[in-house]
């Protein structure tokens, strides 16, 4: 339904993440030899050196590790509405990965460490994944 959402100049080892997003999934690189996830993507495992890297799809639910509400338009950044929340998210089924994302559907004052989050994938203008509180997600599901 959509073109492969990858930038022609993107590093080869980054592409599987976006290919999975285009299919509605989150996946991370995991070493088949030592069993550990790593992030950002590498050609070989940073822990054991093995090149047997497999991308593994995860459930997608995560928890909030840290966050910041950005109130300033930094030069070089495309215009975007202020403020916005940048979150750093961890995943129980991909230990060792922390993902930079935006937190949406909540107020900054309601955020807390280890807050349960659910993914919101968008494919345009480029594939991205934001996260929202799990409570919000279930309200939407029931409405």
């Amino acid at each position, binding site marked *: 339904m959509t073109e492969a959402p990858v*930038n022609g100049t*993107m*590093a080869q080892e*980054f592409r599987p*993440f976006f290919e999975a997003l285009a299919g509605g999934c989150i996946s991370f690189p995991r070493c088949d030899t030592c069993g550990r996830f790593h*992030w*950002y*993507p590498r050609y070989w495992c940073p822990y054991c050196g093995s090149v047997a890297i497999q991308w593994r799809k995860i459930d997608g639910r995560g928890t909030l*590790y*840290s*966050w*910041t*509400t*950005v*109130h*300033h338009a*930094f*030069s*070089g*950044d495309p215009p*975007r509405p202020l*403020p*916005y929340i*940048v979150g*750093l998210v961890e995943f129980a089924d991909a230990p060792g990965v*922390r*993902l*930079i*994302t*935006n937190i949406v559907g909540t107020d*900054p004052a309601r955020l807390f*460490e280890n807050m349960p989050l659910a993914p919101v994938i968008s494919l345009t203008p*480029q594939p*991205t994944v*934001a996260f929202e509180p799990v409570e919000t997600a279930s309200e939407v599901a029931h409405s």
Partner: protein
Amino acid sequence: MDDAGIRPSEVDGVVSDAGIMPNTVPAEFVAAHLGANRRFSCGSSFGGAGICAAPMLAEAALAGGHASVVVCYFGVDWGSAPSGPYGFHDAYPAKRTFEKPYGFIAQPSYFALWARRYLNRHPEALAAFAELAVLHSENAQKTTRSQLRNPTTLESYYNSPVVSDPLRVRDCCLISDGAGAFVMTSRSRARDCRKRPVHVLASALAAPPITGDDVFTQNGNLTELPGASEAMTAALSMANIDRSDLDFAQIYDCFTISCVLQLEGLGFCGEGEGASYVLDGHVRRNGRLPINTHGGLLAYSYRLGIEHVVEAVRQLRGEAGAGQLDDPQVGIVTGLSMPDYGVMVLGR
């Protein structure tokens, strides 16, 4: 050159960092303007860690007979360059691909994630951030050269705009255009220089095996600065001194939070004690460890640490004017350029 009392034509070595200067003001450009015939040029690390590591290279050149007078220099135009310091991180492929689309592009946001984790564990740090902003401003006011003109008070700190929560404008370093340099030569050549020489007692660099892409988000628990402890241990051992021998520390204060984390990483206090150490007044001019006696990156200028070196030399020569400490004998300059960390020890 004038300050050293050495003719530019005597320069035969040029040293800087390996990350920023080679693409902006390379060694050959500096040498040509000096009229210097180069026999040696080299760079290590980048930015603040690079300038702390520069004497390591200069000393190697002097000791090996590869040069007799070495100029170490650094400068930036990030005050007027369109994307300033933020453009620097475009060089990192994973940051460009996985972070930029979410508006995570700037150093204040990187350190805000660290500050959030730290504050969640040590809520008193909020007051320590304010104290550091005021202290740096007070130190800057004692010079006649600081870029920050309006003094920071506790009130103005808390009224300053939030940039990346919890960091406010006054938690962040200035953005500047400027440069600086120092000259290194042998002990014998330095004897008849125009001014009393300052001795480099140590120059150390440490960097764990993590990329610049990963270090802001994937490293440890985000409240431990990579390399600081290792570089400090190496520098103290090289100089054969203890922390208690230090009369000042010019610490790489890119943010108030990074200043607190360095006080811990450098071993001046224990893990989690940085905020209390600041609030107890130890880093004030009359405290146990006066820091950033010129106002640092937060209130003097942001030239990534070369101004820390110049201030350390001023202090050791007794040339710091209204900001002069009482007869300091030895001090350090530190540089944080994640994941690299540099420590330089200077003495009279």
